[in-house]
């Protein structure tokens, strides 16, 4: 696989998975936008541009999977806090089980030695 191709694939997988990573980060506590972006961008391979996370957050809000509240902050501008909703938890749980099944299947395929490999010489 050419390097660019792999990068493209990772980008596509990331786009699909990223919303659920956000939901996972909101499981235990509410966080504000900047905080979420900083954490995600610190994780390897998670984000291209930090700015692209904001449309994702807005979409989660429109889907009813997160709720937002504005809170004043002492140190700077007002902060938008994100909190996961019941619908968000349900979506996350569904994703988690799908992900486990799927990634388990892929792992098995990657791990098993190929049968009848073409370059083996008798």
């Amino acid at each position, binding site marked *: 696989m050419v390097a660019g191709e792999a990068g493209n694939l990772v980008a*596509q997988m990331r*786009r*699909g998975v990223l*919303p659920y990573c956000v939901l996972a980060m909101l499981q235990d506590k509410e966080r504000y*936008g*900047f905080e979420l*972006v900083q954490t995600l*961008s610190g994780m390897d391979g998670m984000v*291209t*541009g*930090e*700015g*692209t996370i*904001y*449309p*994702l957050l*807005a*979409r989660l*809000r*429109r*889907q*009813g*999977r997160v709720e937002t509240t504005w809170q004043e902050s002492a*140190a*700077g*501008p*007002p*902060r*938008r806090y994100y909190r996961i909703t019941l*619908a968000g938890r*349900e*979506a996350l749980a*569904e*994703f988690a089980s*799908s992900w486990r099944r799927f990634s388990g299947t892929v792992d098995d395929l990657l791990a098993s030695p190929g049968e009848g490999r073409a370059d083996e010489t008798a």
Partner: protein
Amino acid sequence: MNLSDNDQLVADYLGRLDQAARALPADRRAELIEEIALHIAEARAADPGGLSEPLAVRNILERLGDPQDIVRAAAEAAFADAAADYRPAGPRHTGTGPAGGDGRGGAGPLEICAVLFLLVGGVVIPVLGWIAGVVLLWVSPRWQTRDKLIGTLVWPGGLLAPAAVLIAGGAAALIPASETVCTGGGSEAGITTSGQRIVHHFPPTCTGTGGMPAWLGITILVILMALAIGGPVYTAIRLLRRAGHAPAGQAAGPAVPIPA
């Protein structure tokens, strides 16, 4: 570099973002720009050099990424929202906003029962039947609040009111209405004490149902009946047509997002 140069860097960036975002619906565009601007402000506040160091500001903007990419992500989200709302089977009507989408699903059994109860429930079981319809109306997730309000207020009682009027009117039709009935009257002859002959004329006492001519009363009655019947029927049709939306913002997103 001084403060205003850094602010200029930020202003340029936001300007490019604004330009790129022209393709987006106005509300999404405004929200996106506001959030990016707040992000930059927050990042500058958090970074010790963020306010005065040009390098710090450039890094912040660098990490945000190309405005084109950000707008592309927003456009993908808008597309995914629209695609998620689309269901080929339901009745279509004009969308109610970026997340509204077209009609889907239509009226299910709950919605049909609600409309039936609202319309004729009040006739079958006076008042309580209609109230049952109201309960079903508000319980259903397939109508927006505005539709539910119209459903409740445009026909309190549903067809109960016109039905009652019809029944009362049918009974009243047997009695001639708006007729003046006069009794008494006439003249009486008498003789006064001095022997003169006098005639007293007594005006007749008439009772009438108001001063309204019959044709006007009937016309008004017909108009009122048309409204009282037309209102609930129109609302019933409207509710059935508009069934199928879960209000924007509530659950029902796809389990796996559509990769753009």
